[in-house]
């Protein structure tokens, strides 16, 4: 093609390429915006997205009252600060007290930070012992500072209950939607140093004979959200 002809063509095509460039950018940002709306829509349908369960407060401690719920993420930090993934606002809890990681098929692994401890079902857990004993499963009680928190895992999550002395179920894989009664092989967690008159000497007693959980006014914690899944779990427990 002659140079003059090509020059005219190229000069004319400048506007075309500029237009297409702007169009590509507009389309890309339009897509970004739509995708963001789509994601928000999906997350509205799944209010517990990213969570594996919740902690239910068993006592009044600090800003927390009985039956307050705290969502538990797959991975996070439990501590006294609001910026923590699980904020527990009471005495005896450090700013960043322990790390939580949910392990598929195992449970919620708990690892206290250096120099700190907690209790799982009454047994003290240190950082050194966390690798062996620091796993919470559905129904276990975690004591951090003055707070006692029972873990509820969402239905459908599988975990392995560690073998305990005298327990009928030894390390059998369970799911969180199995009813918590001795008939189903569930053993109540036994521990020292905690009792709540409303729940009996052992909170598990409320469910042992198919009784109903004591009716307490439900309050949400600092980040606690009453979700559809946790409501279904509590109904399942009462039904048992």
């Amino acid at each position, binding site marked *: 093609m002659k140079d003059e002809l090509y020059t005219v063509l190229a000069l004319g095509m400048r506007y075309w*390429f500029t237009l297409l460039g702007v169009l590509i950018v507009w389309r890309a940002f339009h897509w970004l915006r739509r995708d963001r709306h789509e994601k928000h829509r999906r997350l509205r349908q799944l209010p517990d997205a990213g969570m594996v369960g919740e902690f239910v407060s068993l006592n009044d401690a600090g800003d927390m009252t009985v039956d307050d719920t705290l969502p538990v993420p797959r991975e996070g930090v439990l501590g006294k600060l609001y910026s923590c993934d699980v904020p527990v606002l009471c005495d005896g809890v450090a700013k960043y007290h322990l790390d939580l990681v949910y392990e598929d098929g195992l449970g919620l692994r708990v690892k206290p930070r250096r120099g700190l401890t907690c209790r799982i079902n009454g047994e003290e857990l240190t950082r050194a012992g966390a690798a062996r004993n620091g796993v919470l499963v559905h129904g276990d009680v975690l004591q951090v500072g003055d707070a006692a928190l029972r873990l509820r895992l969402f239905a459908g999550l599988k975990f392995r209950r560690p073998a305990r002395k005298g327990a009928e179920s030894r390390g059998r894989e369970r799911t969180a*939607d199995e009813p918590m009664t001795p008939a189903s092989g569930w053993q109540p967690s036994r521990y020292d140093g905690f009792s709540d008159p409303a729940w009996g000497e052992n909170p598990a007693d409320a469910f042992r004979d198919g009784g109903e959980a004591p009716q307490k006014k439900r309050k949400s914690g600092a980040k606690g959200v009453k979700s559809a899944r946790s409501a279904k779990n509590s109904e399942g427990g009462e039904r048992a």
Partner: protein
Amino acid sequence: MTRHQPSRRLHRAASKLSAVVMLFYFSAFLLLGLKDFAWQAFALALAVPAMIWLGTNFLPRLFPADTLLLSLTNFLCALGVLVLYDTNPTYAYHQAVYYAVGLVAMVCCVWGVRAVRRWGPAVFMLLPVSLALLVLPLIYGKETYGATNWIYIGNLSAQPSELVKVSLILIVSYFMSRRLFIPWLLFAVACLGILMLQRDLGTALLYYGVTLLLYFASSGNLLMTGVGLVGGAGAAVLGYRMFAHVKKRVALWRNPWADYENAGYQIVQGLMALASGGLIGVGLGLGSPRTIPVYHTDYIFAVICEQFGLIFGLCVLAMYLAILWRGSTIAMAARHAFHGLVAMGATLMIGLQTFVIIGGVIKLIPLTGVTMPFVSYGGSSLLSSMALIGLIQGVASINEDDLREDLRLATDGEEAFE
């Protein structure tokens, strides 16, 4: 509970974007083909849009891909091929081959992020390998443009520091996610020390910047990040006083016209190219991009602005911004700290590199020897950029899997109690 189905609106958005991109490259290569009636240009006018279509529609069937990231990456890579073909067709053919290899690297990174469950052994293996790769140019390399950061094996050359970018992100993210301060700090210091010995200050700046920003992302500690920034500034002042070539670069940045026929020639030619392009460019195939020294790597952005204009140059910048936005969103949606940091690190690396090179071209900051991600000529650069996108894609696909798992749990929970 409504089961999630892929949105038709998003699918239409994806199709419309790739259609516009395909039309752009078809018309661009057709125009170049009409210049000399070269059959290669006509072949590229069909092949490049076909590759873009395949990349955007077929690749997502092989692995769960973020199609928007794929589209933008494909556009930028093809832009590099287009501009290189206009200036030097041999470079364009090489770049097309590097792009194909880069796609393989991207898929490998996606698969790696998804498949590897325990990163500890992989990271401890990467540590010595990365340091060994960085040291290689000091032993076997030759000085190129003032830095000893290339190795030559026969006809092939490679820049190990480009490849170590990927392992830097993986290693630093692993230790930061476990709050192990000393290992990542030692590794980063070792890398920076080796790069200073190579006199590759541009890459050292990238490594330092990304590590510092990742530290802030993982810890939120503003005080220590500020200390790091001040330390970095202090090191820059020290480098200015110690290295003569740094003093020269800063002097040229301040006034390239003082020695525009010699040392300042590149900067001056780049600025003149930017200015001569105006808003809509001089026209594809016109102008004189080859008067700019190293136009195919450092100054490719000036070539783009000369040919297509400043508006198009801003559009290219906007695409990088879109990649940054998307990468940050993917990082913040990650459920595990390690995955979030990997995605954030890869995003920051691309963003910082883009800022450093474009800032140098427009004389915002002193010029450094880094390349423009995806666009600049160079196998190592393109490979590492595609690998970084692969890391982000891998985390995005894990995020999608996690959301599907949440939906399954929500549905199972309902069924269990019905």
